[in-house]
C-alpha cells in the first residue's frame, strides 16, 4: 500500500443472456432426423415469450444487434457492452427447450444448444462461462446432460427455469441435484418458464407486467419447496442461485417459513434447523433486479434483514433493461467490503471459476 489507488474490482457478472440468433445455428449439432423434423414441420424458433420484443424491459437501449438478431445474440456487441468491464460473465441462455413436451426432442435440443454454446461462445472468449441447459421435464435426461458437460471448464452452472411443472424440491428432480453436486456445479434457477400451471398461483393474468411481477412469487414457492423437501440435507454441497429473482422478498419469506416450521416441522422432520439458516448456507441471489427501496437507509435495513452480504452475487441481467441498474439500486449503498463480496468474492465461493487470488481479480497473475 503505497498510496496508489486500489485497482478497480473486475466483477463477476452472474447473469448475462446469450441468445440463439436463429434456429439454423443449431442444425450442425442435431442428428439428421431432428434437423429434418424442424424443417419439415416448420419449427422456426424456440425463442421464449418471457421478454416481449417491443417492451422496454426486454432490451437495453443500444443492445439490439445491427445484424437484426435478438438482443444478446452478437458476441462482438456483448464484448463491447459487457465483457470489457468484467472478469467473468456467466451466460444463461433462455432458448426455450424446456417448453418441449417430447422428451427425446427436448434432450436433443439441449445437447445441441450446449454444444453451440461451447463452440460459439465459450471457445471464443475466455471471460465467458455458461450454464448447462437441461431438458428439465425429464430429470433423468437432464442428469445425463449434466454428465455430458460437467467436466467442461466453461460450464459453471446448471440452468433451471423458475416456473416448472412440479416444485423443484420434489424427489423426482433429485437426479439433477445429484449430478450437479458430482460436478461441483450450483443450480441456477432463472426467471422464466411456462408450463401447464397458470403463471400466477391464482390463474392467468391479463398483462405481461403481472407475469413479470409474479415471477418473484414462484421463486418464493420454489425456495419453500427446496427447503421443506429436504433437498439441502440430502445434498449438503448443493448451492442454488436464484437469478433475476428480485432480492428483497427474501427476509419476509424466511420470517414466515421459520415461524411456520416451528409449529409444523413434524411434517418434515428432515428439516432439522431453521429454514433461514439453511437458506443462508445454500442459496444465493443475483442483484439485478434488486427491487429495493430508494434510500441508502432503506437499503441498509434490507441488508440488515437479509442478515448477510454473502447472499448476493453481482449481475447485470444484460441485455434486459430494468428501472435501475444494480449500482444505483444496491451496490452504491454498500460498504467497500460488502461491495467486494458482492462483486466478486461471493461468486468465487459459489462457482467453479478456478484459482483467483489477485486483488484485481486476475488470479492468473496473482
Amino acid at each position: 500500500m503505497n498510496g496508489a489507488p486500489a485497482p478497480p474490482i473486475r466483477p463477476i457478472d452472474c447473469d448475462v443472456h446469450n441468445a440463439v440468433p436463429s434456429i439454423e445455428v443449431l442444425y450442425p449439432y442435431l442428428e439428421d432426423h431432428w434437423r429434418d423434423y424442424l424443417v419439415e414441420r416448420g419449427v422456426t424458433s424456440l425463442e421464449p415469450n418471457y421478454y416481449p420484443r417491443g417492451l422496454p424491459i426486454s432490451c437495453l437501449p443500444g443492445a439490439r444487434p445491427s445484424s437484426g438478431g435478438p438482443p444478446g445474440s452478437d458476441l462482438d456487441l456483448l464484448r463491447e457492452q459487457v465483457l470489457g468491464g468484467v472478469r467473468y460473465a456467466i451466460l444463461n441462455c433462455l432458448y426455450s427447450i424446456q417448453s418441449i413436451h417430447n422428451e427425446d426432442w427436448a434432450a436433443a435440443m439441449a445437447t445441441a444448444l450446449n454444444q453451440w454454446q461451447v463452440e460459439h461462445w465459450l471457445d471464443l472468449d475466455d471471460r465467458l462461462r455458461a450454464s448447462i441447459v437441461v431438458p428439465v421435464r425429464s430429470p433423468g435426461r437432464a442428469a445425463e446432460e449434466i454428465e455430458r458437460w460437467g467436466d467442461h471448464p466453461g460450464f459453471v452452472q446448471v440452468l433451471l427455469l423458475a416456473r416448472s411443472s412440479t416444485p423443484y424440491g420434489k424427489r423426482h428432480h433429485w437426479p439433477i441435484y445429484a449430478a450437479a453436486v458430482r460436478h461441483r456445479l450450483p443450480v441456477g434457477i432463472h426467471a422464466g418458464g411456462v408450463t401447464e400451471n397458470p403463471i400466477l398461483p391464482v390463474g392467468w393474468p391479463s398483462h405481461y407486467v403481472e407475469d413479470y411481477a409474479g415471477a418473484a412469487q414462484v421463486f418464493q414457492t420454489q425456495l419453500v419447496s427446496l427447503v421443506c423437501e429436504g433437498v439441502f440435507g440430502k445434498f449438503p454441497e448443493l448451492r442454488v442461485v436464484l437469478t433475476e429473482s428480485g432480492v428483497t422478498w427474501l427476509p419476509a419469506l424466511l420470517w414466515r417459513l421459520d415461524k411456520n416450521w416451528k409449529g409444523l416441522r413434524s411434517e418434515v422432520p428432515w428439516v432439522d434447523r431453521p429454514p433461514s439458516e439453511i437458506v443462508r448456507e445454500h442459496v444465493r441471489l443475483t442483484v439485478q433486479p434488486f427491487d429495493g427501496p430508494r434510500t441508502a437507509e432503506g437499503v441498509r435495513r434490507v441488508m440488515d434483514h437479509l442478515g448477510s452480504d454473502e447472499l448476493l452475487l453481482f449481475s447485470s441481467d444484460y441485455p434486459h433493461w430494468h428501472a435501475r441498474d444494480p449500482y444505483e439500486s444496491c451496490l452504491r449503498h454498500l460498504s467497500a467490503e460488502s461491495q467486494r463480496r458482492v462483486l466478486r468474492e461471493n461468486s468465487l465461493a459459489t462457482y467453479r471459476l478456478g484459482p483467483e487470488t489477485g486483488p484485481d481479480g486476475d488470479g492468473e497473475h496473482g
Partner: protein
Amino acid sequence: MVEGVAERAPERTRRRTTIIDCDVHNSVPSDAALRPYLPARWRRYLDLVGHKGYHSLERGYAYPKISPGGGARVDAWPPSGGVPGSDLDFMREQLLDNYGIEIAVLNCLYRAGEQLNDEYADALATAINDWQVEEWTGRDSRLRASMVVPYEAGDLAAKEIERLAGTPGFVQVLVLPRTREPLGRRRYWPLYEAAEHYGIPVGIHFAGLTGNPITSSGWPSYYLEDHTVMAQAFQSQVISLIFEGVFERFPRLRVALVEGGFAWMVPLLWRLDDLYERLHEEVPHLRRRPSEYVREHMRMTTQPMEEPERPHHLLDLIEQLGPEMLMFSTDYPHWDFDDPNRAFQVRLPEEVKSKVFHENARGFYGF
C-alpha cells in the same frame, strides 16, 4: 372424593387497550344447521350431491392441517360439544370477554364460494348469511359479519351484496385468495361494483382451493408449504387488482387483506413501482404508482404475526409499511391465533398501538 386444585384458565386480562379484532371465525356447526335457511330445491341438492368443489375428498383438506376442526386451537373445542367457533357462549368466554374485545369481525369460512355449481354456491351463501344474522350478529352487539358470497359468479355475488346491504351487522364482503382467475379480472367486477356502490369493503381472507395448483410450479407436498405459500396467492392478487386497474374502475373500492401476513407487502411494492416505471405503457389505464393504490385502497390484518429472527426488525417493517395500514386480528379459534397481549414481540409505540388495535379498523369499516 378428592377435589384437588381447581382448574382455571391462565390469567390473561392484564391490560385494556381497546381492541377491534378484524378476524374471528364463526363456524356452521353442521350442514343440518343450514337446512332451515335453504329452499327445498337446494335442501334436496344437499341430500343428492352435497358439496362438490375442486378436490377429490368428500370432506377435509387437500393438505391436512395441523389440528382438527379446520386447524383449530386444541383448547377451542366448546364444552357444549360442537366444532370450534360454533358456540357463541364459549367464544364470549374464550375471546370476547377474556380480552375485552370491543368489536369482532366474523369471517365464516364455510366453503360456499368454492362450489362448482354456482347456483348452489349462491343458495349456500344466502343461507349462511341468514344464519349469521340469526345466530351471531343478532345475538351479540360486539359482532359484525362478512357477507359470504358466490364470488366466482360476480353477478350472483353482486345480488347477494345488494340483498344484504341494508342488513345491520354486515361490514365486509368475503372472498378467498385462491381463486379460479386473478381477482382483477372482469368476471369479478360486478362484485366490486356492488361493494363500491354500497360502501362495503372487500375482505380477502386466507384459504381457498380451485383447480389452479397452489404454486405456479404445481402442487407442493406439505401443509407447511400450503400455509406458507398462501402469502404468494395474496401477492398475486395484489398484482392483479392493481394492474387490471380495478381501483381506477372502482375508485371508492376498499380491500382488506386478511390473514395474509404483511411483511411481504413492502418489498412487493418496491418491485411493482420499479416495474411500473419501465412497463407503464402496457397498462395505460393506471394513473398512479402501484404503491399509491395500495396505500389508498388496501389494509392488512396483523395475524399471523410476523416474527423476525431479531424482533426489532418488526418495528422497521411497520414503519416501512406505515402503521396506518395494519388492523389487529386474532384469527380465533385457529391454531395460529394471535393473543392481543403477546402477539407483538416488541414494544409498540403507544400511537402505533392505538392505530393498529382499533383506530385503523374503526376508520376502514366505519365503526
